[in-house]
């Protein structure tokens, strides 16, 4: 049996409709051999958490260009935790000022990717991080895993 594909949720929280970046990322991750669940724009924190739960994703990627990340991201993290989706990797991208990054890392985001990030670097980052998590979770047996 070959390694199962990495499943990634790509979502755009909030009200900005600039989804070109999210689509470019979705397409690049597809080309890197991942299964990308694309949910599109204007997602509420509940919708994002619900999709992550049902789709059992390895990665949750949020794209935001409106500047509302410090309001929306904590609510998304809360909704995700409330549903016990605690093993998914959190990454985000878009227009995010440098000074917000420590707070986002505090919230649990392991990667914050701004404009100019190479999609190859992003794919490699995700593959490495998910690989490490899978090795760790393989050592601790859990039901139906």
């Amino acid at each position, binding site marked *: 049996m070959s390694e199962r594909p990495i499943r990634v949720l790509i979502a755009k929280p909030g009200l900005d409709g600039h989804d070109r970046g999210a689509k470019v990322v979705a397409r690049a991750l597809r080309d890197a*051999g991942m299964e*990308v669940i694309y949910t599109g724009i204007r997602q*509420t924190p509940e919708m994002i958490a619900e999709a992550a739960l049902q789709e059992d994703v390895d990665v949750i990627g949020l794209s935001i260009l409106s500047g509302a990340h410090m309001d929306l991201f904590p609510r998304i993290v809360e909704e995700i935790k409330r549903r016990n989706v605690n093993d998914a990797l959190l990454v985000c991208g878009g227009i995010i000022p440098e000074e917000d990054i420590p707070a986002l890392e505090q919230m649990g985001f392991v990667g914050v990717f701004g404009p100019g990030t190479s999609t190859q670097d992003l794919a490699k980052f995700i593959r490495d991080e998910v690989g490490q998590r899978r090795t760790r979770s393989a050592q601790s047996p859990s039901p139906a895993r």
Partner: protein
Amino acid sequence: MDTEWIEAVRAGNPRAVARAISAVERGGPGAHAVIAALFPFTGRAQIIGVTGAPGTGKSTLVNELAKYYRRRGDRVGIVAVDPTSPFTGGAILGDRLRMQDLSGDPGVFIRSMATRGSLGGLASATFDAVQVLDAAGFDLILVETVGAGQSEVDIAKNAQTTVVVDAPGLGDEIQAIKAGILEIADVLVVNKADRDGAGATVAALEMNLNLKPKSEKSWRPPVLKTVAIRGEGTGDVVDWIGKHRAYLEAEHLLKAKERARFRSELDMVLQRELMSRLLSHLDGDEMDSLVDKMASREMDVYQVANQLLHAAERSQA
């Protein structure tokens, strides 16, 4: 073995259901264990397939159908399949995008699946995922295939009722009389019926149905017009799915359908298992050298296949 998760799946716990579907998707002994544990609790759900060409509006129609069933009080499971790239193994699963009305409703569970190399319009684990949802107590399970061409007809073996979605402008009367996808329809839908040519599409489909020899008891699929994006005509689709179900019950066809489904499942699993056992005897170099022999015209494909089969039989004897 830990059995807590079985109870959690049966209680419809979304985390447990999601995990169980991931396990069946992964295949191997883990998948077999999940199905073995849940199989006794399956067989209650009504399974409806939705298929049709890419862009005809399958996901939007599924969204509307699910809203109808929710209003009736049914719990609805959805499995939506999109294609895996044959080159990279990646996939964009975008059906959820059209189903946002259902988000936040605990009575709906949506799962996107990639085909992962399987042909026929479904993933090889699609039916296993349906069984997980069935055991989790979903009353209705809607299975949306990949955008189907003409011969992706596996859904008809998996679903009790198959809805085929067409749209105006996709072909003439000759397309309508070809064999394949139109033959598996229990309900035919012409979506985007507000567009030019909808009448001609309906007429072509009706003509094709009229050419079929009539027998008293056989089911004649209705041809329904919808504009799914505005919810127009979707109530009729629900009604006709209900009528088809009643027909299956009245004619005692449900059991026969289920037997046919199990038979085709068994064929598929045997093919997969035999293939993997056969290939497990072989290393990559051996395979390469056999392909070399074909490339140099020393052996043809049947000679190579027979040689491999004989070798496998000998190693078992």
